[in-house]
């Protein structure tokens, strides 16, 4: 059970850091609203609901990307990541703690974005909300690990979107499907499958991403 204690310790640390710095969360919030407004102007007048739902997912994916770009910044500043790697905790706990914190932030952003979307475009149903929750898990799990990879690169801000977007495609399919299809269960199940497979993969491989 010490594993989960470590995860909670680390997640709390991240929440505290963001609450203090207050830079990433407000930016994500502003970004998602701005994006939705741009989409209003980008959609033709007779666009159908499916197109609008698709745009919700584009907004979410790119907002998540914005937040993920800075997710390991506190660890980079004074080499704190090495401090965590030295600690006796499991390396995967570092990933899980961070991903959990990112999930909380993304969730908070979505709490604003979904009603905004409902206001600007079309009402949001339960299947969409379920889809958003499940997809967010995948986004946070995979995104946190990819961000750690990108952090090792010279061109980290450039490379993270390139790494993330192909892996986000199945999530977008699942999410849009859940919103639009008459049979959302299939798409929600697919999202859960994605989450399960990739969460395990991230959990097992994070150790190697931070080791030399």
């Amino acid at each position, binding site marked *: 059970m010490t594993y989960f204690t470590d995860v909670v310790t680390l997640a709390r640390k991240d929440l505290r850091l963001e609450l203090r710095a207050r830079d990433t969360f407000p930016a994500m919030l502003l970004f998602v609203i701005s994006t939705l407004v741009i989409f209003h102007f980008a959609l033709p007048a007779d666009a159908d609901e499916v197109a609008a739902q698709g745009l919700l997912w584009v907004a979410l994916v790119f907002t998540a990307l914005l937040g993920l770009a800075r997710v390991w910044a506190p660890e980079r500043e004074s080499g704190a990541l090495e401090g965590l790697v030295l600690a006796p905790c499991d390396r995967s706990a570092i990933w899980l703690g961070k991903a959990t914190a990112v999930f909380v932030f993304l969730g908070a952003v979505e709490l604003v974005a979904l009603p905004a979307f409902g206001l600007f475009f079309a009402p949001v149903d339960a299947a969409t909300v379920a889809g958003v929750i499940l997809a967010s898990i995948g986004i946070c799990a995979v995104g946190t690990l990819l961000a750690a990879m990108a952090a090792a690169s010279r061109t980290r801000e450039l490379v993270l979107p390139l790494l993330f977007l192909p892996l986000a495609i*199945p999530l977008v399919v699942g999410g849009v499907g859940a919103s639009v299809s008459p049979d959302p269960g299939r798409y929600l199940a697919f999202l859960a499958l994605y989450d399960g497979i990739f969460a395990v993969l991230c959990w097992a491989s994070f150790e190697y991403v931070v080791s030399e």
Partner: protein
Amino acid sequence: MSTSSRNNHVPVLAALAAALIGVAIGFAFFVAPEDVDQGISQRIFYFHVPIALTAYSCFGWGAYKALLLLWRKDERYDLESYVAIHQGTIFGSLTLLTGSIWAKASWGHWWLWSENQLVLFLVLFLFYSAYFMLRFSIEEGPRRANISAVYALFGVVLIPVSFLAIRLAENIIHPTVFTREGPQMSGTMFLTFCIAWLAMTVLAYALYRLELLGKRLDSNLRELRELVT
């Protein structure tokens, strides 16, 4: 791995690949019967599908070497994984190219969203292109090897997941307008297909060994230079 010309089989492999490709082309264009419905475009199919299968094999091989790297911590596997993925990307690009030609010949469009195989390769092409961008922006060393290996493993997991996603997407996004029946292959057709598949696999392996040889020679040369100075 020895780089002496006595030990490596690259010339033999290259010759074998060339021969098999020649045979495959011969079979595809002259021996196999013409398909009533599709005509010449079906001939492209003899290359398009084997190339696609070879690309999958390369990615799989690259992931296997990546797994070995992470498990055994021997840096030798890093280069092997990289070269395999490099070959996979080349064959993947060829898949997109031949697929596009096939689509134009069959349906008159250079791109078809309804062709799941093509869409999958587009996603994989994006994914593996990012592999190279990632790899070349990290300094050489165990960090780069480890990260590349983990990414290669993600790729191989993405293949089935993406395929499933694309299948699911069919129903909501793009109604299937063009249908392609799975080829019911006669005996000769199947033989042609198998020859082409073998030819592509041997070609890929020959290119893999060639590139690996080249890179190892390069690295040995550098080491020698360092020892001398």
